[in-house]
């Protein structure tokens, strides 16, 4: 039973480390900020969640310490990390960072232009 627990923990930690390395490769090699945020927010989240699950099982089965803070940390990371990625890429788009030249379609552009015109109509100019 102890051996199975150790194998499961090592497997979870290894998956976490592999996804961590994939994150770094993606951040270093992908061409623009949107693809980099895509790599960072997804695989870093999955990697750290798997690693924290392994650490949680280690403390639970080998040390007899049920850590609620680790479970809360896993849930919190799962909720907030994609929101952070969304906010960062939206800030990048709104501040005018160009996507890579391989990009084919940009559906957001028309929506943003419409939104700008709409908000210019609604705010008075005499500020």
């Amino acid at each position, binding site marked *: 039973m102890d051996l199975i627990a150790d194998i499961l923990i090592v497997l979870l930690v290894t998956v976490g480390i592999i996804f961590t390395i994939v994150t770094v490769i993606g951040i270093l090699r992908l061409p623009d900020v949107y693809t980099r945020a895509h790599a960072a927010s997804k695989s870093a989240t999955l990697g750290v969640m798997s690693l924290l699950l392994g650490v949680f099982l280690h403390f639970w089965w080998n040390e007899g310490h049920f850590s609620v803070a680790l479970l809360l940390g896993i849930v919190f990371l799962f909720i907030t990390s994609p929101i*952070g990625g969304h906010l960062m890429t939206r800030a990048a788009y709104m501040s005018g960072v160009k996507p890579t030249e391989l990009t084919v379609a940009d559906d957001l552009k028309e929506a943003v232009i419409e939104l700008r015109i709409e908000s210019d109509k609604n705010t008075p100019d005499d500020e």
Partner: protein
Amino acid sequence: MNVFYSVCLVLVILSMLGLLYRVWKGPSVPDRLVALDAVGVMLISAIALFSILFDTPFFIDAILLIAIMSFIGTVSFSKFIERGEIIERGPNR
């Protein structure tokens, strides 16, 4: 077993160095923001591995704290990039 966790820790720290290269080089500000957010995540995994290596569960509260602080920093900085101010003025002040 300790050797395995030490190797994992070294790999995580090397990944942090790779992300810091992107922070140093990144052509735009959001690039650096994305890389720094990932550095926060790597810091969480490094602390989790440290708490296994030192055989103590007392570091685990720091994990939750770093997660919350990193999220607040990301939200406020991306709001600053997008709008130019973090806490906006109300309409009737």
